[in-house]
């Protein structure tokens, strides 16, 4: 498949990308709509001598991830919303013990058992912590199958570099979608030494311990400061987004992943009607691209923002924080597994164009 375009399903591309990134450990539990990630791993891991374990639960799967990561391996799990909720215990421990791992969430509609169709309703859970304690995950939201490939490889590098969990946030559409993907001959794998790993002392003077417990409050506070310093560095260095049309846009759309694909087409249709629309598409949901949104809100040509999501409005709160009252922020969302049509979004744009200060949030 080297340097050749192939047609593949999003979920399978995630698995293939992980293998190319040197991941030889996968632990998971079946759930729709991420199934193909697991099927692909079940076959390929055995063929290449890696580890594939179908765990008894999501709780167990993430703890296997914790163990393999503690032993210095590149490791991944994948699931979908209800399963990711179960993984939150382990994700908090991974953050506390500073372990590198990749976790894929092919989001489905909730709350509760919800449905199996696409949603972006896990934005809050993914970006605001999810489990207990003060911590962050690096959250990446690819918008195409090609990006699923490239960003999954990158996720492993980032996980190792920062010793933290990197979450790939997709949705049922992206996971099930088939698109051409161009694989590289060689992956840009950053080899990072892990002298902290618990691999057996092997003559080392002191034994290594991987833990997240600090009984002394001063020790725990110091640990938390270390984590916060790391997160601050990441906020300053790892923000990724795609922006276009901002220099003359009257309305700026904020949307990520699947939603941004729909909005791209709407922008063309709006232009045909003489309405200039730009877009900021966050690629990292955390760290959030707040600076570009703040700068855009200060532009004279920009009259209003429109945030489009497959939820009741979650990322829009981060957009509002960045816009900071400088311009009205409008929202359009669909839920339950429904996608907005291009017409629905275009109608919203026309309404904002006619009256940018009416119908916004707050």
């Amino acid at each position, binding site marked *: 498949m080297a340097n050749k375009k192939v047609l593949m399903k999003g979920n399978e591309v995630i698995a293939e990308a992980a293998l190319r990134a040197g991941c030889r*450990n996968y*632990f998971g539990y079946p759930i729709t709509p991420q199934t193909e990630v697991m099927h692909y791993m079940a076959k390929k891991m055995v063929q290449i001598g890696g*580890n594939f*374990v179908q*765990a*008894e*639960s999501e*709780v*167990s*799967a993430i*703890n*296997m*991830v*914790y*163990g*393999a*990561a*503690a*032993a*210095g*391996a590149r*490791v991944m799990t994948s699931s979908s919303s209800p399963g990711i909720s179960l993984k939150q*215990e*382990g994700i908090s*421990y991974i953050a506390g*013990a500073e372990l590198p791992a990749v976790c894929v969430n092919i989001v489905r509609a909730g709350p509760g058992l919800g449905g199996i169709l696409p949603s972006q309703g896990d934005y809050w859970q993914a970006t605001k912590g999810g489990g207990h304690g003060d911590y962050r995950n690096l959250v990446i939201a690819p918008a195409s199958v090609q990006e699923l490939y490239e960003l999954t490889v990158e996720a492993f590098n980032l996980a190792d570099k920062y010793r933290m969990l990197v979450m790939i946030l997709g949705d049922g559409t992206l996971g099930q979608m088939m698109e051409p993907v161009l694989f590289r001959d060689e992956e840009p794998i950053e080899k990072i030494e892990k002298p902290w790993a*618990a*691999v*057996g*002392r*092997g*003559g080392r003077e002191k*034994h*290594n*311990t*991987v*833990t*997240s*417990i600090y*009984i002394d409050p001063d020790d725990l506070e110091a640990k938390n400061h270390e984590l916060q310093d790391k997160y601050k560095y990441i906020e300053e260095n790892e923000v990724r987004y795609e922006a276009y049309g901002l220099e003359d846009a009257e309305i700026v759309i904020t949307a990520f992943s699947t939603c941004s694909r729909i909005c791209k087409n709407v922008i063309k249709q709006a232009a045909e009607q003489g309405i200039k629309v730009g877009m900021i598409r966050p690629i990292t949901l955390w760290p959030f691209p707040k600076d570009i949104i703040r700068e855009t809100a200060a532009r004279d040509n920009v009259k209003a923002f429109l945030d489009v999501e497959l939820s009741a409005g979650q990322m829009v709160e981060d957009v509002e924080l960045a816009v900071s009252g400088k311009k009205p922020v409008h929202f359009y969302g669909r839920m339950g597994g429904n996608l907005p049509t291009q017409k629905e979004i275009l109608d919203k744009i026309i309404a904002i164009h006619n009256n940018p200060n009416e119908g916004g949030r707050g």
Partner: protein
Amino acid sequence: MAVVFEPTKGLTDKPFHYCPGCNHGIIHRIIAESMVELGILEDTVSVASVGCTYNSYDYFACDAVQAAHGRAPAVATGIKRTLKDKIVFTYQGDGDLASIGTAEIIHAAARGEKITAFFVNNAVYGMTSGQMAPTTLLGQVTTTSPFGRDASYQGYPINVSELISQLTGAVYVERVCLTDFKNIQNAKKAVQKAFKVQQAGLGFSMVEFLSTCPTNWGKEPVESMEWLKEKMIPQYPLGCFKGADIDFSKKEDAQ
């Protein structure tokens, strides 16, 4: 003068934080001595759990990973699958292994994970101050069974070794106690056999230690030992439930 006894190199110099009369110290020592005697100290990763032994890694001189409550067998699975030639053991109490971690222990055993679980059963939650455990005896008073465990209200004790021994993937399961020198020697033999089973790649191994908790039982250390013998052993009989026939003096088992 000739040195006749030295502390094992399997333990660090840090003094135990365990209560007087608690058996964790003895269990730690025989595990540590076994690692040294089998020559595996440098190749072992221990998995600490949640409870009184959350920081067993402060005492065991091998590499270690601390696990969430009940999840040690899953964490050990991740480690062992990654480090196939290393020895991996969990150290878990009865609240950890027999309550919140039942799924993890049963499935690790069922998968035949080549790990060893050291299971310490003292019929009570220790660290959180004496609540009823799944292993609490009928009639036993705890902070959450203040009128004694009543079967019609709180159900029955779980005999973990008997349960695990039913699984094909579990190849060696033995229950021991530490009430006297003979039993301690026997417990140490069980620890070594469990490690050897893992070294030989035969499958899952587990040693259950009946242990005392004078603090939460409200008894003196000596009285606690007597209570263990009189009350616990009838409910939890000592013995090998699986793998009694594995004999490492025989060539085929040693390979």
